[in-house]
Each structure stands twice: as structure tokens, then as C-alpha cells.
């Protein structure tokens, strides 16, 4: 072998090794670039998810605010129409209902009819299950007022039954709440109407 041949062989070997090393360097670079792209996409996706979450959160907060505002407006309206210092509220409740099937309630304050409510079967069921019905709300001046509550329904032996209860309300400063309770008096087998004042 001549010197020239050996030199040419060596040159070819060097070229081959050089190409291999360049290729090896290029591969990681492509992988890095791909990894970088993937990272960027993941970051963008993550940011979008975060943005959606924050938007969703904001929407939920807004909804809650609207509901709170609606509730506050309702309470303010009630306060305006029925200020606490002159407010009087009347509630109906029922206990047992064996001797009296309620049909309607009529309320008169100082001789003037202020409420006349007919009860449906569904409403009576609700009362029997412990529900309390706000039958009337009024504004009354301080002083004495006469309340007459007339209950109409079916009494013992399914006879038509009409019973009244009268009470004098002493209206002071501050709201007043009166409960008109219908209870069954087992001893007399008659319904009893009790007017109670809530403290």
C-alpha cells in the first residue's frame, strides 16, 4: 500500500466519523425542538384551562351577587311597604285536624275585612304537616285594635262549622306577629282556636 492510499483511507474514515457525529448532534436538537414545542403547547393549553376556570369562577360569583341583590331588594321592598315599627303579621297553623277540616279563614281588623283565604287540599296537608301560613300582613298604628278571626270548615260529624275568635291587639312600637292556631280539643271533641303572640 502506498502512502497516498493510506492517507486517502484515513481521510475517508475521518469524513465518515464527522458525518456520524453531526447526525448525532442533530438528533438531540430535533428532539429538543419537538420537546420545546410540546412544552409550549402544554403551557398554552394549561393557560387556556386556567383562563376558563377563572372565567367560570367569575360567572358563578356574578350569579351569586345577582341572587344576593335580588334577595336584598325583596327584603327592602317589604321593609318599605311594611315598616317594622307598624308591621303586624298574622299566621295560621293547624294541629291534628281530627275534629275540624279547615275550608277558609277570614280576618277583620277594627271591623274591616282585611283577608279572606280559601285553603286547598294541598295547603291543608302542608298545614297538617307543620307548615305555617302568613295569611295577612298589615300596618297598624300604636294602640288597641280588635281582631276577629272567622274559621269556616267541616266540624265533628262532617257538619258545616263556623267559629270565630276575637282578640284585642295592643300595638306598641316594633313589629308584632300573631299566630292563629287551630287545635283539636279531645275532651270536648271540638276544635279550639288559640291566638298566640310571638315574642
Amino acid at each position: 500500500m502506498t502512502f497516498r492510499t493510506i492517507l486517502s483511507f484515513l481521510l475517508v474514515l475521518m469524513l465518515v466519523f464527522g458525518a456520524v457525529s453531526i447526525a448525532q448532534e442533530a438528533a438531540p436538537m430535533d428532539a429538543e425542538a419537538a420537546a420545546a414545542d410540546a412544552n409550549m403547547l402544554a403551557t398554552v393549553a394549561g393557560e387556556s384551562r386556567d383562563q376558563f376556570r377563572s372565567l367560570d369562577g367569575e360567572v358563578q360569583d356574578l350569579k351569586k351577587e345577582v341572587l344576593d341583590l335580588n334577595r336584598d331588594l325583596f327584603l327592602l321592598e317589604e321593609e318599605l311597604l311594611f315598616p317594622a315599627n307598624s308591621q303586624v303579621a298574622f299566621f295560621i297553623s293547624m294541629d291534628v285536624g281530627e275534629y275540624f277540616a279547615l275550608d277558609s279563614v277570614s280576618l277583620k281588623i277594627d271591623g274591616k275585612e282585611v283577608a279572606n283565604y280559601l285553603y286547598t287540599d294541598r295547603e291543608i296537608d302542608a298545614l297538617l304537616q307543620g307548615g305555617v301560613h302568613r295569611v295577612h300582613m298589615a300596618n297598624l298604628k300604636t294602640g288597641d285594635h280588635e281582631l276577629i278571626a272567622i274559621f269556616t270548615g267541616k266540624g265533628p260529624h262532617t257538619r258545616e262549622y263556623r267559629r270565630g275568635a276575637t282578640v284585642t291587639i295592643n300595638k306598641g312600637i316594633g313589629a308584632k306577629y300573631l299566630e292563629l292556631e287551630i287545635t283539636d280539643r279531645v275532651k270536648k271533641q271540638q276544635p279550639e282556636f288559640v291566638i298566640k303572640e310571638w315574642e
Partner: protein
Amino acid sequence: MKIRKLLAGLALTVLATSSLAASDLAGQPAPDFALKSSTGENLRLSEYRGDVVMINFWATWCGPCRQEMPLLDQLYSRYQRVGFSLLGVNIDDDSGRAMDMIRELGVSFPVLFDSRKVVSKLYDVDAMPVTVLVDREGNVRHIHKGYKPGYEEMYLDQIRSLLRE
């Protein structure tokens, strides 16, 4: 001449106001009420929420009401099982006469008695009969004053449209 014009203007205003009052209810929540029915139980409009409800105001002295009621009964029988309710509201002072007429006509829908005219005032009933259609959400959608043969076709279309909503 001036007085005539003034009177004409007043008459027009009254008519416009009364028609406005009736049309005011359209699109508004139907005023709630409870009345005693012909079967003895109390019925409340709001308990029918979810159904398409027709409220028909009638009286025993009203001839078109007699014509209309059997046709309304047919509508009731046909569509009751798919969410249609019909409440007849009688405004006679004497509910006994209304009961007689109900038996005579053989209607099956609930009839309520408004002898004190409280509900008819709520609905601004100024003609006979008056038919009000309330949608499932409880809003007044159609109001018809009076009855002429053929109106039942219009009712049918409107009921079907509301049932489809």
C-alpha cells in the same frame, strides 16, 4: 259641535283604556286566585302551574256561553291527559242556577263560583264569555272576549301550540 267632539274624544279614550286594560294582562303572570268548585273543594290557579290552563268566565244568562261550553268540554276531554286544564268560572250571584246549568249541559271540567266577582275584576272581565289561556309558566298568553261559532278552532290551535312549548 265642540261638546260633540269632546264627547267623542272621551268615548274613544274610554274604549282605548278598556282595551288597553285587557291587553295589559297578555304576557303578564296570571293573577292567582282560589275559589270553591262545584265539587265542594277549593281550587287555586297556581296549583295548576306546569299545565296549560284555560280560564273561561261564563254566566247562566249568557247565550253564547251555552253554545261554547260543550265545545270546551270536548277540548278538555281530549287534551286533559297531556297537560291541559280547564277552569270554568261562573259569575252568577246565585250558584244554584249555575249548578243546574252544569248538570243540564253535562260538562266535566271543574266549575268555580265567583259570586263576589273578585276574580272577574282581577281579570277585567267586561264581556261574556271571556276565555283566557295561561301557559305552563303561569303567564297569560291569549284573551278572547265573546264567542262566535268557529272560535273553538282558534282555541284548538292555540292550545296545541302552547302544549308543544
